[in-house]
């Protein structure tokens, strides 16, 4: 007796691929895509497959760049504020440790977690996985590492922090003189590059490549 997995595989010729829509659970055939095109779900319109030429190269390069930019972005001061004759500079790590020292542990933990630790882990795990996929070496625990990436990726809020810094600037505008410091530019560059690193490759493509290592 033929089992259904075999049946489906037989039908699954080279030019056709069976895909299931993750958002509405519709099973459909996707024909071979040209690079640069997306296949959308017939029923709900969400993207099923997207092919991007050289996605792996681009995304590895951009991930390395964003990891390099991450440290100056986080450690260098974002703003320098002159308030009643006293100058203060604020960076993410400084701000978190300031809050911790003044006893606001919960807020300090939130800033440290969502603006520093989770973004860092996100790009580190992505880098590790892409490295493994790119050189076709099965690095230890690579699928577990990428699973961690999939779980934490929606909790990284570095771009929200940048927006908050801009809002803080405008709020302080009436009472203080401020200067934008180098960290701000590093941070903006980090966000632009990291967002493009993620958007050139889809998670399902990385999973497929991981499976075929």
């Amino acid at each position, binding site marked *: 007796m033929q089992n259904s997995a075999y049946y489906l595989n037989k039908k699954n010729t080279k030019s056709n691929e069976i895909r*299931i829509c993750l958002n509405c659970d519709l099973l459909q055939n996707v024909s071979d895509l040209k690079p640069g095109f997306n296949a959308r779900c017939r029923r709900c319109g969400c993207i099923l497959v997207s092919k991007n030429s050289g996605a792996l190269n681009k995304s590895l390069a951009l991930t390395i760049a964003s990891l390099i930019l991450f440290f100056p972005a986080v450690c260098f001061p974002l703003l320098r504020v002159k308030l009643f004759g006293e100058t203060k500079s604020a960076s993410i790590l400084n701000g978190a440790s300031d809050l911790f020292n003044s006893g606001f542990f919960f807020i300090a933990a939130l800033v440290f977690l969502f603006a520093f630790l989770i973004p860092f882990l996100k790009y580190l795990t992505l880098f590790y996985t892409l490295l493994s996929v790119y050189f076709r070496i099965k690095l230890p625990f690579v699928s577990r590492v990428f699973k961690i990436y999939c779980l934490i990726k929606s909790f990284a809020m570095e771009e929200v922090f940048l927006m908050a810094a801009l809002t803080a600037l405008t709020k302080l505008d009436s009472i203080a003189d401020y200067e934008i410091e180098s960290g701000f530019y590093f941070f903006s560059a980090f966000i632009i590059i990291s967002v493009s690193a993620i958007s050139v490759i889809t998670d399902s493509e990385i999973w497929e490549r991981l499976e075929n290592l």
Partner: protein
Amino acid sequence: MTHYDETSGDEKTIIACNVCSKLHYCEKSFKDTVKCVRCGSRIYKRKKDSAQKTWAFLIAALIFYIPANIYPIMTFSAFGKTRGDTIISGVNAFIKSGLWPLAFIVFTASIFVPLAKIFGLMFILCSIKFKWDLFYKERTKLYFIVEFIGKWSMLDVFLISLLTSIVSLGNIASVTPGPGITYFAFVVILTLFAAMSFDPRLIWDNNNKNER
């Protein structure tokens, strides 16, 4: 999604892994203990207890939203005078000083977005409960919007953390976070979890037209 095997007549189920979207061909009565061959996470037909969990997170978020608005989110003290700002009075202060775009940003991030998330998800959950046969695409889109805007309500928390670390000159001028911001952070985190635990495939379970 059930798949009918023409040769054997067995009904098999094709299930996509929730984490890595690998397809699995399972028996109709498969058990929850099956693990994904690719990423090792458990396979569920739908996220486990999705609607219940989402309701729980949403109701908790709605409860936390009340103290978040009553208590001051920050206190500003300058030269011995202290002023507590709640979320709404903060927006008001921006409007009074004529900073309209800023008032808009803070209003959107800290009042509109949390409420839109809570009530948007509640609406979707109710529509599933009452088996609406309408607006499938739009409801899916609404879920994606809710998921996308979620983290932007964290802006207020970051804003206050920045102001606290910048404006800390002891008696001359200082900003301290108030109890409201803790509750507000809980609201944001709970709504994030609510959006994560919701499974958009539940919306489409009621749709039997144009399958395959």
